[in-house]
Every structure is written in structure tokens, then in C-alpha cells.
């Protein structure tokens, strides 16, 4: 195993974290919109 695995792991972890955060934010907003629609 060479010394560069740290950069590789960091890249994959950051990508997963960013996409999960963005997806989670959209899911949260959709849920809130659904709830607001039901209340209305």
C-alpha cells in the first residue's frame, strides 16, 4: 500500500459527505413541504 491512500480515502469520504448532506437537505425540505401541504 503506498502513501497516497490517505488522499484517496479523504476524497471519497468528502464526496460521500457532501452528497449525503445535499441529499439529506433536499429530503428534509421535501418532507417539510409535504407536512405544510397536509396542514393546509
Amino acid at each position, binding site marked *: *500500500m*503506498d*502513501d*497516497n*491512500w490517505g*488522499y*484517496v480515502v*479523504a*476524497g*471519497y469520504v*468528502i*464526496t460521500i459527505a*457532501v*452528497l449525503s448532506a*445535499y*441529499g439529506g437537505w*433536499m429530503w428534509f*425540505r*421535501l418532507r417539510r*413541504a*409535504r407536512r*405544510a*401541504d397536509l396542514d*393546509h
Partner: protein
Amino acid sequence: MSTRVGVGTKILGAAAFVSLGALAVFALVVAPPDERQGDAQRLMYLHVPAAWLAYLAFFVTAVASVLWLVPRTRSTTWDLLAGASAEIGVVFTGLTLVLGSLWGRPTWGTWWEWDARVTTTAVLFFLYLGYLALRRTGATAQERGTRCAIAALIAFVDVPIVHFSVTWWETLHQEATVFNRDLDVQFEGFWMPFTLIFAVFAFTLLYAFLVMVRLRLAELDEGREERQLEEAIAERVAVTV
């Protein structure tokens, strides 16, 4: 208006999720390390498709903006699609920059270099960040649509500049590699080119899924704002009467 996403969107999301899982296995386990760069080259399977996705997202924003500006095709959907796609483009341009920086450190020996490709990509990121800020400024839907469509078309000028920057200027960033006939690129075996093509495919699926969900959300926000406005007007009228 239904607040649920359609079955097609859900299937697309599942396909994107499975493809990304498979991509992680291909990129981290199956594909061999590069002869010169070693394992650092595995970042290519994220960096290249993220950059491709940014181009695609901004292209869709530009097309949707043109469709908004042409009176015959003008529809709120085009304006909302332009905004949804630009937001996804900004996320992936940011990722491209971060992943490029992580790849640059072991291969170039630096986290950041003000060379033409990196600088024009950073400019692209801030141009579209400005575009997203412009979408939040107060105005009627018509005014906002027109203002943002013009801004999107101006910002899109930077996309070909980013792409051709490596041929127009001397850069530390490598030239176009895969489709460059002047370079005799030798991929090692089957898995390296396959994984790269598969990565582009998986990210494109992800884009299609994200843009559909984001558009749905934008439509819901737009509908709620209209409803609130109508309620406020009705209340005002009731008070006056």
C-alpha cells in the same frame, strides 16, 4: 399539487445509488493503481465525472435559460429547471476543486496552483454562486426569470474557457487525455477505462435524479409562495371591506 416524487424518480435514485456503490468497488478495489501515480490516480474516478457533471449541469441551465428568454417557449418550469441544475452544478464544481486539490498534493506537490484550468474553474464556481444569490433577490417571477437567464448565459461563457484552458495556455494541469489523439495514452488493462466510463455513467444517473428532486422542490416552493401571496391579498381585501 402532489408533494411526492414520482415512481420514475425513485427508480432513477435507486439506480444511481446502486451504480455509485458499484463504482466505489471498481474504483477502490478492482481497478489497478496507475504505474506512475500509484493509488492517488483513483481520485480520477471522482474528479473527472464531477467535472463532467458540472459542465452538463451548467449546459442544462444555459439551455433552460434560452427557453425561458424565447417568448414562445417561456414557462416557469424552464426558470426553475435552470436554478435547480445550476445549484447541482455548483455542488459538483466545488467537489471538482476539492478533489483536484487532493489529487494535486501527491502528484504536483501542491494543494493549489493558480494555473489556467484551476483558476477558471474557481471563477466558474463563484460565477454560479453569484447566479444562485441572484435567484434569491426580491423580484416578480418574470423579472427574476429574465434577469437570471441573462446571468446564466453570461456565466456559461466560462465553461468552454475552462475546457480549452489546457490547450490555450501552458498549465500544470494535464491536457485532455482520453480523447486526445496526439497523446498516446495507454490505459492499463480493461478495468481502468471501464471504471472511468462507468463513473461518468453513474454520476450522470445521479445528476438526473438530483435535478428531478430539486425541480420538484422548487415547484413546491413556488406554489407555496403563490398561495401565501394569494392569502395575504385575500386578508387585505377582507380588512378593507
